[in-house]
């Protein structure tokens, strides 16, 4: 015998009108909208970041929670987690990187196409963490430039979301000329990357 169960009987109106994202500042007129190319490209980039997870330990487990339904990184336009560095925008290094692993992290970074960003998640990736020892790399910023550091051991998924939103902020505000600038070339040279 079927039971009288009903779902979604009460209408829930949206509290605020649903928009995907705010339009950048510009001039609107009859049939046109004028703005800066930087802003449009930034808007497109920041809402479609493809992350490349480089997960080596417990931070990787926390990242799985981040990708799951509850925290849902897909809300930020990043449901497409790619394991091919060529197509990715954001390298997420999560976990202890041993010194023997360092060349591999660097290789993955080099294989990514510009523009590329790096997020270091957790104490180990940012500083070596508790593993202050001969075999562990004391922070991935010794081998590749890092844009955002997320502290914690391991960080809560909310913290990573916050870090991710900071990456989005950087991506959205980045000048289109930055990667061709002399300062950027110097930064890359510091890390031995041409």
């Amino acid at each position, binding site marked *: 015998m079927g039971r009288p169960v009903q779902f979604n009987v009460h209408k829930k109106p949206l509290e605020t009108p649903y928009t995907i994202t705010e339009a950048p500042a510009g001039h609107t007129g009859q049939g046109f909208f004028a703005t800066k190319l930087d802003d449009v490209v930034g808007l497109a980039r920041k809402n479609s970041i493809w992350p490349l997870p480089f997960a080596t330990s417990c931070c990787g487990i926390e990242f799985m929670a981040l990708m799951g339904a509850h925290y849902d990184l897909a809300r930020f336009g990043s449901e497409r987690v790619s394991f091919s560095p060529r197509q990715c925008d954001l390298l997420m290094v999560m976990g202890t990187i041993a010194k023997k692993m360092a060349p591999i992290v660097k290789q993955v970074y080099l294989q990514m196409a510009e523009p590329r960003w790096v997020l270091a998640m957790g104490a180990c990736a940012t500083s070596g963490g508790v593993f*202050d*020892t001969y*075999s562990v790399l004391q922070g991935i910023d010794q081998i590749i430039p890092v844009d955002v550091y997320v502290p914690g051991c391991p960080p809560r998924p909310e913290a990573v979301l916050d870090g991710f939103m900071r990456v989005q902020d950087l991506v959205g505000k980045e000048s289109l000329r930055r990667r061709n600038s002399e300062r950027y070339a110097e930064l890359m040279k510091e890390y031995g990357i041409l």
Partner: protein
Amino acid sequence: MLTNDFIKNKLVEKFGENVSDFSEPYGMLTFSSPKELNLKVLQFLYDNEELKFRFLTDMCAVHYPDNKGKELAVVYHLHNLIDNIRIRYKIFTDISKPDIFSATALYSTANWQERETFDFFGVNFVGHPNLKRIMNADEMDYFPMRKEYPLEDPKRIDKDDEMFGRG
């Protein structure tokens, strides 16, 4: 039945004064000999029809910085698979000349284990077919498990000693 006393008597009968320091911590027979005799002792333990220690479970080194002239101990853990008896055999060497004969010809398992011992303690196994680092990065220029090196990364500059309890 193979007992510790029986093994001890066999060894003393064969090597006399050269095997010494017999003890039985937790029931496991432990002894040592001069380092030049290590292959002879291992070969005897391997070949003897009553002893038959034909499996090298583990080998490692220990650094005793205060033990002048005998700073490095190399420890062999041997197993008789038939009678299920284990023994421990130690040899000591000077750290300034850590040359030890390699046991690779006798035990194939000694190959990687000697490489590991070389990697961490710098014991030079004479006669090893491929004595190079196995665990650590090839560029490493020291032997990290020796007690003369700090456990922390010595090249690190950004950690404030006071904040990390080593002020």
